Structure formats: C-alpha cells, structure tokens
C-alpha cells in the first residue's frame, strides 16, 4: 500500500482534528474569522496591576473560568478546550482517545498567590519554616498538583483516555512544534495509529512578564496595544507575551482513510537543529536555523522549490526577524522574495509553549481555506528584510505546502512542513 507511505517508506501522517484557543477567542471558527480580518487580540493587561512595569500589554486569554486562577489551572483549561475540539472534529471518543499524549506546556512554579497564602497561614520561624509547616498540613493536593511538572498532562490523560505515560515537554518557544514532531515520529515508528499533540500556555503572570522584560525581549509600545506586535517592520521592538493553545489529532493516513475520517492536512516533515552559540541569541551565520529548515524539507521529501507559503516564527523582536530572514533567504535564495510569509504573532502575540502548535493549526487552515492571514501593523517596512509579508490584508491563494518555523531560547530550532494533500 505505497500510497499510505511516504518517500522514506514511513506511514504518512494526516491531521484529522484541530482545536485552537487564543486571545482572539475559543475555537477554530472564531479564531480564523478574526485572523483573516486582521484583528489583534493584544490588549492592556487587567489580570494584575501594571505599576512599575515597562510593558503593560499582552495577549492574555481573559475570558475563561480559569483565567484568574493561576498558570497551572489556565494552562490546563486551554489544553482541555483545544484538545476537546480537536478530538471531536476527528470524530473520536473524547473520553477514550486511545493514543499517546504529547503536551507542550510551560515549566511550572508555585504561584505567588499560593506562596503568599502559605506564608501568611504560618505563624513561627523563618519564611521557609513557615512555608513548610503549612505545606505539610495542607488539607488537599490542589497546590501540590500545581507544583508538579507532569500533572497537567496526567489530568488530560485521565480526561481524554489517552494511552500510556503522557509526555510533557519543553523546547522553549519551539515546544508546540516539538509536541507535533513527537506525535509524528511515534506514528511513523508504528508505535500507534494516532496521537494527540497539544501546545498550551497560560503562564502570562506578572513574574513571567518581568523576566522577559529584564531580558529586553518585550515590546514596550504600550500606547496602542494592537499595534505593538509588528513583525518584520523597521520599528519592531520586541514580542508581546500571550497565551493560547492548539491541539492536533495526528493519525496515520491509512487509519484515517480506513475509518472514513476527513483528512484536514498532512504533517509531511519535521526538522530540528540545535544551536550552541548562546543562551538567547542565534549563531550569527544562522546555520542552526538553516539546518532545521533544510532538515524539515529533506524529511518531507521536498526541494527548495517545494514550499508555497511560510508561516513565520516572526516574533517582532529585532533579532529573530532578522535571523529568520537570513535563514530563509539562505535556503530558498531569490525564490524567497516571491514566497508569501506572514506572522500570526502580529495578531495573537507570542504564545510561547503553545506557539508552534497554534501556528501549525493556522497553517493547516491556510491551506484548507485558500486564504493567507496577513502580517498586520506592517506600515514601516524594514529595508533590510525584503519579504512578501502579506501586509495588513489577507490574501486568497492556493497553498499546497507550508513551512512553519519555531525558534526558541536555549538554541531550539524546529520546523514543520505541512501539505494540503498526500503526495
């Protein structure tokens, strides 16, 4: 059955379910409508006070029941919402998914509100003694669960009936793409017929904002929040912290066809290459990102002429956008000038651990709908970056293949190649 195997003889991996939540709304329909009309989800922060902060805007998800209950609760709810949408669309049992779970989510830490509460409940001794005395007498495991790195995935595994030990992973801002890659690889190795890959991030706390701010990574263009994220523009000054999630049901094409599922797209190739240059900066020659793009093309069995559209990492930081342009123009040469590329982050901000998954979801919708979402806020082109960024307005186009880039702190570079139809 050659048509179910790819150019390397591995099972072809189809996408049969997609779920999305961002600051633009819950679900694919709302998100896609907003994204293609060029609407931004970036707004002034109301979740916590912004006194003393240089950045006072974000793309937080403020409309869920867990939005004010801490990073752990919100990350779980985001993952749960998108996971449910994806499994339902795939026509599978939302309580008995029957494949492994790969979750990209932020590293957990004790929420400050819990830390304050523990401390203030204590009576004697040093701050540390007080925390411990209260901790060991807690009546429930609620706070404990928020401090365990595997607990969100364990809850999701319970709820969706995924199989085996769930994997929680972090490759920083490439995490969402890595979660998809792990699912693709598990299916290709024949370990399972389907996998659930989710990227979720509800960790936009004050401390997270401050940490990125101290690294000078965030935009401080607070005055008009929806204009702050301006990938590839000359006056870009940093990313906008954001939240969201996306889930993909990945399935061997053979299994999808056999059960009559609608194939929403093909996960054709994955590539990665790590960078040993610096903790936050890329190697000046861009070689690791270049290597990741090339590895993804090779894995997909495509040449340099094989990509119709690039869903950019496009964070709107001076460094990323410059390096991404360098990498892409090195791989694709002159062809890159004529290849449309846009950044979803211009509208939804940088959803960190979720970004790779959300942008893969939007890449699949781009092919399916024949519409490329724009890069908004592109009013002042960076002359050093000559790209067709699909400025400000959506574009109708037949897109058969997409390259989606994800680059993260710690030298993480992961690229996905998706196709509309199996080759």
């Amino acid at each position, binding site marked *: 059955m050659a048509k179910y195997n790819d150019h390397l003889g591995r099972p072809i991996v189809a996408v049969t379910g997609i779920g999305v939540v961002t600051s633009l709304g819950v679900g694919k329909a709302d998100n896609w409508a907003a994204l293609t009309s060029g609407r931004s989800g970036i707004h002034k922060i109301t979740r916590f006070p912004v006194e003393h902060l240089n950045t006072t805007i974000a793309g937080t998800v403020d409309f869920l029941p867990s939005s004010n209950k801490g990073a752990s609760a919100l990350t779980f709810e985001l993952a749960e919402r998108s996971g449910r949408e994806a499994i339902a669309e795939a026509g599978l049992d939302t309580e008995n998914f029957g494949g492994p779970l790969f979750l990209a989510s932020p590293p957990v830490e004790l929420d400050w509100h819990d830390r304050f509460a523990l401390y203030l409940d204590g009576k004697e001794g040093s701050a540390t003694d007080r925390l411990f005395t209260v901790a060991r007498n807690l009546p429930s495991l609620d706070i404990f669960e928020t401090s*365990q790195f595997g607990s969100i995935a364990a809850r999701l595994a319970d709820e969706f009936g995924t199989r085996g030990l769930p994997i929680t992973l972090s490759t920083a801002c490439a995490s969402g793409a890595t979660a998809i890659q792990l699912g693709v690889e598990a299916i290709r190795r024949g370990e399972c017929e389907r996998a659930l890959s989710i990227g979720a991030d509800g960790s936009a706390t004050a401390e997270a904002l401050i940490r990125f701010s101290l690294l000078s990574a965030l935009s401080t263009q607070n005055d008009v929040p929806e204009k702050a994220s301006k990938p590839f523009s000359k006056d870009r000054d940093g990313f906008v912290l954001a939240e969201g999630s996306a889930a993909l049901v990945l399935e061997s094409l053979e299994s999808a066809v056999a059960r009559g599922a609608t194939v929403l797209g093909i996960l054709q190739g994955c590539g990665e290459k790590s960078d040993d240059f610096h903790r936050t900066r890329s190697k000046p020659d861009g070689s690791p990102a270049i290597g990741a793009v090339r590895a993804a093309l090779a894995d997909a069995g495509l040449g340099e002429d094989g990509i119709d559209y690039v869903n950019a990492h496009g964070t709107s930081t001076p460094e990323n956008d410059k390096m991404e342009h360098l990498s892409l123009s090195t791989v694709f040469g002159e062809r890159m000038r004529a290849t449309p590329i846009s950044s979803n982050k211009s509208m939804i901000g940088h959803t960190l651990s979720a970004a790779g998954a959300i942008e893969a979801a939007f890449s699949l919708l781009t092919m399916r709908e024949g519409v490329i979402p724009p890069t908004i806020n592109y009013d002042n082109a960076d002359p050093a970056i000559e790209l067709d960024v699909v400025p400000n307005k959506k574009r109708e186009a037949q897109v058969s293949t997409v390259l989606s880039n994800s680059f993260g702190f710690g030298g993480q570079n992961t690229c996905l190649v998706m196709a509309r139809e199996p080759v």
Partner: protein
Amino acid sequence: MSAHDVVITGIGLVSSLGEGTDAHWQKLTATDAAPTVDAERYSPYSVHPLPEIDWGLQIAKRGDQRQMETWQRLGTYTAGLALDDAGIKTDEALCATMDMVVAAGGGERDGTVDNAILEASETRNDRDVLLNEKLTTELRPTLFLAQLSNLLAGNISIVHKVTGSSRTFMGEEGAGVSAVDTAAARIRSGQSTHVLVGGAFQTEHPDMLLGYELGGYLHRGPWKPVWQREGGEGGGVVSGSGAAFLVLESREHAEARGARIYATLGPVVSDLTRRRKQDLGEAIAGLLDKTNLPANGQLLAMSGASGAHAATKAEKAALERNPQLVARAFGTLTGHMKEAQFPFAVALAALAVNRKAGYPAFDAANEKAYEGTPRSVLATAIGYHYFEGLALVGAPD
C-alpha cells in the same frame, strides 16, 4: 541481536556518593556502604547532599559556569562525564550529530528575593504591586535562563557542542522514563545513531523540598532505609542531589567506532496508572509481565523506590510476588533524585552487567542476598505520586 539494538556506551553519574562510575561501584558494592546524610540544614528533613565538585573539569569556561545555577551546572557536568566515558566528548563531528533528550524540572529561584517579598507581604495589602516593585528591581536578569527547564539541554549544547537535536521532557520520574524510552525508540527505528539522555536533580534548595512537601511526601525524623520508612513520621521520601546521563547508541554505530559497550538496553515499559481507582501493585506486576524477564535464576532489580509510603509498599509487594527478583533500592544510599531517578537506575543496572557482579543488600533486613553473575538487570522508577517505568538491561553479547 541486530544492528539497531540499543547499547549503552557511556555513563555519567554524580550523587552524594561521589562522581563517576568507579566511585559509585566501589561505594555501592562495599559491604558497609553508608549514606551521606545532611540532617541539619533542612531539619526536620534529611537530604543526601552533592559531593565537592570541581566544575571546571567538565565546564571549562567560568563564564559558562556563572550562567547556570547549581542544577544546570550539575546536569551539564554529568553529561560531560557521560560523553567523556563514551569517548565522544572531544569528537566534534559525533557531538554535532548527536541527539539529546533531557529529563528536567526547574532550576533554583532566588530565595533571598522571594523571602524578602514574603516578609514584606505581612505589612502590605497590595501584594501584586509589591511583587512588581520587588521583582523588577531585585531579580538578576539572567536568573530566568538559569532556571528555565530546557536550558539544561541548552547549556549542554553550548558547553559540550551536542547539537543534533534537543528535547526536554518534564514530569518528575516519568520524564526520565520517557526520555530513555524515546531515545531508545529513535535508535531502534534508525532515526538516531547516538543519543545523550539523562537528567539532574538538585535538592538543596527549599523550593525543591517544597515540591514534595506540598503533597506531604517528605520523611521527617531520623534517616532510615527506603523500605523501612512506612509508619515513620512524614511521607517517606528522602531526596538527594544527583544526576545520571547515558550515551545510547545503535550497536552498529558503537561497534563501528570501537566503543566499549557496557550493556544493551532492552524493553522500556511505562504507564500512568490511575492510582485512585486501580491497584498500583497489580499495575506494576502487569508492567513486569510486559518486560520479557528472563525465565530462570535470580534477577537483580535496581529499584528507584522513593520511600513514599503507598508507592513504595506497592512496588515492594509487586517485586516480592516474583520470587526471582532481588531488589536493591539504591535510594537508600543516594536519596530520591526525581527526574534523574530512572536514568540512574538504568546506569546502575548497566554497571552490574558490565562488572559481572551484583550489589550487596543496601538494607539487609529487607533485601535478599544475590549470588551469581547478572546477565540481565531490571531498573525501576515507580513515581512517588504518579508515573511508572521499568527497563531491562542485558549483557552486551
């Protein structure tokens, strides 16, 4: 035997017992093996502290050392030991094509800043504003990176030039299990030829202990061996600082470069047992059934049991149900090393196979004698709260 068999060709170990395979083998096979315990610093909790480490031996640049807190330094150092042991460390080409899967939690927060905020919170009602005020002015800008989970792998890339691919798995003991499992699966399928896999845990920070104690899991009072903590004060876990990294290779790749093969890595099985609804002991027995245990003779089981009452009791029962199994809970001597626990268990299993000898009982009252030459050794990590994993390590030939 096949070309894509997974073999172990490098081991890096650090624990309170010392560093390196020789030091661990000597300490763990001594008849009077005694743990190094610090019962004072975090009283009423005991910890097994890190030994003295000359970081410069594996992390040459002081600038790199300064960019990491102890947890990342420990992992990066131990990864270097494993690469050295495998004869890969100075081979740039091999490092550049090497894949990596790291099991990680998080790094150390700045306790001084945190405690100052807590103390100030007693006289302030606007605690969120207080947070902004203190964190914006008192946090060291690069501390975030020194804490970030995937930056252990990031630092290994920077310091040791391991740059094939880099994934970080999170989730306590389960992260270590999945890391080893995924690395082995990549090799078996021909996706990778050589992989660095492991984890580190630095327990000597209040937050690292709090991570257990929020669930009431820590043992209090005088130190006891892992199997003897049932009924004692507290939850049964005594943690330890330590790290374990392995170099896994396809047999073909290892033989082609003439590498020393410690052992083969056989099946890795794992699960997430719904412990509230399902009997954990039976679940572990079910996993043992899937591990293809050899039919005859004693089988050494390097148990990663944490001491946590319910999980340890269930594991003991499951291991005892099979009269063939001879358990060695190494946590008695090293403490519980969370994400590093499973890689550590696999490493100790590989050492026994390689040195053709078992370990004496670490707790003679609860562990049977082992006689003979181990050709297979089991490694376990049954999570203190959730996640279960087993692996069978075998002789190289």
